[in-house]
């Protein structure tokens, strides 16, 4: 084979589109010809460069397309007016958050959520689609698949069952209810770094009942010190709540970490509550950390109480 004829076959050779015969002849030639071997290497480089251009389909776009199609088939309304659930809702439902009364069409236009979902935001806010698309493309979905079973059948086919996990990035303001819901879900994640980060953000929103409950739960039950400390800080503005004070006393009595107990006592003594005298006295007797003892002592003194029960 001549170099000229081989060079015409190189792209097809690369894509595995030659007959076995042609393939053998090309390979024989490549063994002897440095120039054609270089041409094949260039073909590989070209393919690798082109691979980087591959677009991933944003799953939310896919969901939106599906909804549009089904709406159209069911004799549906024009797509901008459809009342079915948006991908954002579906996404949150998919991760197990419950949702009521969410209507993205009525959301304010400002820098609230859906920024990373730029494409969708642009559709509903009537903005220039060019800018948000760039944002969306920077956070492609990742798909992680776990194969559960492989069954060959007699017909020579293979049935493969696998679970898919889709990773997606969303961003939005802390004011956004959806972001708060996600953070609440994140506060129960296995990864403690995620829990600390979420708790650090949630603590600024302790006014919400759900957030308060999560802070109370975390401060007692989270195995991670950082998470408990963040939760404690979040509970500080809620000291007027008897349930919060009760939980802080529980932390002071039971938490194995002196750092957490210190934080708890600091929070607790910022508000005088005479009904806590006996609880504080008993804590003072049991506590072996000097800083905490001093704090308790001062608090009891402020309440005109003695440091011990006699």
């Amino acid at each position, binding site marked *: 084979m001549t170099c000229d004829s081989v060079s015409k076959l190189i792209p*097809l050779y690369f894509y595995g589109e030659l007959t076995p015969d042609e393939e053998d002849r090309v390979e024989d030639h490549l063994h002897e010809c440095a120039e054609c071997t270089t041409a094949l290497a260039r073909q590989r480089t070209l393919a690798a460069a082109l691979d980087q251009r591959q677009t991933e389909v944003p799953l939310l776009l896919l969901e939106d397309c599906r909804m*549009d199609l089904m709406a159209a088939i069911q004799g549906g309304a024009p797509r901008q007016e459809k009342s079915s659930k948006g991908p954002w809702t579906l996404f949150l439902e998919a991760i197990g958050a419950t949702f009521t009364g969410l209507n993205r069409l009525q959301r304010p236009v400002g820098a609230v959520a859906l920024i990373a979902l730029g494409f969708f935001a642009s559709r509903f806010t009537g903005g220039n689609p060019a800018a948000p698309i760039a944002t969306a493309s920077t956070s492609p979905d990742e798909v992680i698949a776990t194969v559960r079973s492989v069954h060959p059948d007699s017909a020579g086919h293979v049935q493969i069952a696998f679970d898919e996990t889709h990773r997606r990035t969303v961003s939005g303001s802390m004011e956004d209810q959806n972001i708060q819901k996600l953070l609440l879900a994140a506060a129960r994640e296995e990864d403690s770094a995620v829990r600390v980060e979420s708790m650090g953000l949630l603590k600024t929103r302790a006014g919400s009942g759900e957030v308060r409950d999560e802070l109370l739960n975390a401060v007692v039950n989270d195995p991670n010190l950082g998470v408990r400390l963040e939760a404690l800080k979040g509970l500080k503005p809620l000291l007027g709540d008897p349930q919060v004070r009760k939980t802080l006393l529980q932390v002071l009595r039971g938490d194995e970490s002196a750092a957490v107990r210190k934080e708890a006592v600091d929070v607790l003594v910022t508000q005088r509550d005479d009904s806590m005298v006996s609880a504080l006295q008993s804590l003072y007797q049991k506590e072996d950390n000097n800083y905490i003892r001093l704090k308790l002592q001062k608090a009891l003194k402020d309440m005109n109480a003695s440091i011990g029960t006699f």
Partner: protein
Amino acid sequence: MAQDAAGAVGARLSPQVDSLIRAAQRGDQDAFEQLVRTYDQSVLRLAMNLLRSPEDARDVYQEAFLRVYRNLHAFRFDCSFHTWLYRIVTNICLDQLRKRKVRKEESSVVETSDGAIDRMDAFEEDAAEADPERSMWNRQLKDKIEDALRDLTPRERMVFELRHYQGLRLRNIGEMLGTTEEAAKNCLFRATQKMRAVLGDFV
């Protein structure tokens, strides 16, 4: 090289797909929805990759599956459903690419104070003077790749897309585009040659 999971799975699991098609032909809407879900991710990816615009890709998706819905009764199982579907999808995408090509040709010459210059020439001058840093190089490569792909005819672009990104065989691609395997091979060869010419310094 990207392999098209949905396409490959769909083609191989034909008994399940066949029963979905038959149910959908009888008017079972759930079956139709399942059928759509078997293939729609790869259809959308094809449209996104070709058109680089979520809005256009969305239009292709909608039009393609509406056509499938309206014409499914006429599907006679004389080819795989995947091939039949892709005939529809590739037709719509080719139309879009051809419209763009016309628009591009109409607008690719801009007037400057020195007269008309071609946008491509201007780009190449920019590239020649560029910063040698890697990120810049990568950005240039990316731009060059877009140029190289834009330089292909809609048909070459389509064959390349289906072979390189969707991992389909040329024989199958020929069937989808209503041509022969040999013609698809020629298309792929020309596409590769053109891209190598444009990307010469980069690859």
